[in-house]
């Protein structure tokens, strides 16, 4: 059994890197007091623009840059409504997701003519780099930023008692920008490294799973890493078991990540302390 787990671990880490990046980004945004359901849409748009960017320029770097740009556009949309117009964040996030879904589907079908959406596999060192960034570099950097700088202190204050600050909007926009950077990379990694390109609705709820892990990890980076790792291992385990012909029938296997996330949300009874002003306008 241990062998099976050890065998699944590296796969799990790599496969759940997009998820982890999304968790990290959403964590920053929620620490600043906002619930961004639209992270699902951000990942999806980033996955598409990443592919388009790479295919047009044949450069992985350009692909990632395009992905981040796409995520920024989605973040800007959410920000305008949630920050500038102080709109309800749940409704705004839902609308943003629908917009992303419709827009990416539309563009995908419109451009499907050529081979635009089939990309060559990403080189190993780039993959390793992104995994390293996501699992080690970014968590450390974000932890330092949030807990050792005045910027981070004020960002966290925006999520606790925003009335204490003068320029709450600045910190919330900054948080969204950070989320876009991370989710952009996550989306690009999903389409360029883990898949062979873009497919409609390919994020399949990763954004929502990320939201759940943020809660499970109690809005801390340590919790984010542990939560994502646990999730990734559990999911990868099932695939490994599947390969060995034990486990669930194929379609129920597809439902596993979501049931797993539901169980994760069950494990947070009572004592969870969210940032005090989370979700309030």
């Amino acid at each position, binding site marked *: 059994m241990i062998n099976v787990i050890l065998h699944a671990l590296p796969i799990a880490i790599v496969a759940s890197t997009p998820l982890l990046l999304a968790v990290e980004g959403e964590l920053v945004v929620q620490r600043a007091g906002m619930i961004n*359901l639209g992270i699902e849409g951000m990942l999806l748009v980033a996955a598409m623009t990443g592919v388009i960017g790479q295919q047009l320029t044949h450069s992985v770097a350009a692909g990632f840059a395009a992905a981040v740009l796409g995520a920024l556009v989605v973040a800007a*949309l959410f920000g305008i*409504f949630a920050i500038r*117009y102080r*709109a*309800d964040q*749940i*409704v*705004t996030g*839902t*609308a*943003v*997701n*629908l*917009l992303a*879904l*419709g*827009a990416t*589907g*539309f563009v*995908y*079908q*419109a451009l499907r003519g050529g081979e635009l959406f089939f990309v060559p596999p990403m080189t190993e060192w780039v993959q390793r780099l992104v995994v390293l960034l996501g699992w080690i570099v970014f968590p450390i950097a974000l932890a330092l930023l949030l807990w050792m700088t005045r910027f981070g202190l004020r960002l966290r204050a925006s999520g606790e008692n925003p009335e204490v600050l003068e320029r709450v909007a600045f910190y919330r926009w900054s948080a969204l920008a950070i989320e876009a950077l991370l989710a952009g990379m996550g989306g690009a990694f999903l389409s360029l490294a883990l898949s062979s390109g873009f497919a409609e609705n390919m994020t*399949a*709820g990763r954004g*929502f*799973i990320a*939201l*759940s892990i943020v*809660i499970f990890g109690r809005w801390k980076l340590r919790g984010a890493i542990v939560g994502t790792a646990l999730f990734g291992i559990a999911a990868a385990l099932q695939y490994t078991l599947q390969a060995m012909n034990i486990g669930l*029938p*194929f*379609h*129920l296997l*597809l*439902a596993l*990540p*979501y*049931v797993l*996330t*539901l169980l994760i*949300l*069950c*494990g*947070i*009874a*009572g004592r*969870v302390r969210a940032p005090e002003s989370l979700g309030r306008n």
Partner: protein
Amino acid sequence: MRQLAAALAAIVLLSLCALAVGRSPIELLRILANGSIGSRFAIEGTLLKSVPLLLTGLSVALAFRAGVWNIGGEGQFITGAIAALAAARFGVVPAILASMLAGALWASIATAMRLWRNAPEVLTTILLNFTAIHLLGWCVNGPLQERGAQYPQTDLAGAALPVAGELHAGVLLALAASVAAWFLLYRTAEGLRLRATGLNARAATWAGINVNAQLVRAMAISGGLAGLAGGIELLGTTHRLFERFAAGYGYSGIAVALLAQLHPLATIASAMFFGALSTGAGELQRTAGISSNIAVFGQAVVILLLILFGSWRSRD
């Protein structure tokens, strides 16, 4: 009125998408109109599409009014349909009832998780959607697959709704549900308390209202309505289950509810608008090859405009 402005503005913005694929916006609008209301066939199609939208719209409206974020219409729709299929052998009425019960139960999973584990229903209902979609996939590829096992779909259901021409009795059921929902919200004391809970749960508690009970009730009714939508769609229109059965009806319900400002009677008109958009988009796909995703895009634009105008919920 701002609602009308939002709807029209969305259509205009949509038509501009035509430019992205090298076609004229006017032509896009023409095809949309033709496909939705340009012929008897089109109008019937629009009405048929409006029925599930009306019910999922009511589902969302009721839940949001109670202050509960039920985004799980999709999953409740699916489980409702599965239950209807299973119960169809006993007749149409048991099948309809089964669909409502299944939808209510599926929604109640999220309620239970919120009450016992503090899990936010906005996430749990969405996760249950994905779960239900794959549950459906398993059913139509496995235990419920048609006898010939050729396609991922079930056999025809053992019962069907009575029809009049191309329309089925579901139209009447949906309208009745709309009136019933209005009556519940605006003519009963429980409806008053439900609305109060949604507007200010703290004040509702101080006024002696059992907020948790309101939550449970609202989610159950909301789930039941979405489940009913699935049952009616099965027993009236498709007559069998297949992958992608839900086709976004659950999420579309959100746009329907918001355009109607969460008001049960206005949902009728709102559902017809989005029903028309949907059939029109289908025609666009068929004749002009423009992705029917444009309908989803349109829903999102409407919602965003409503948010901008500040008119996605009415003051009672």
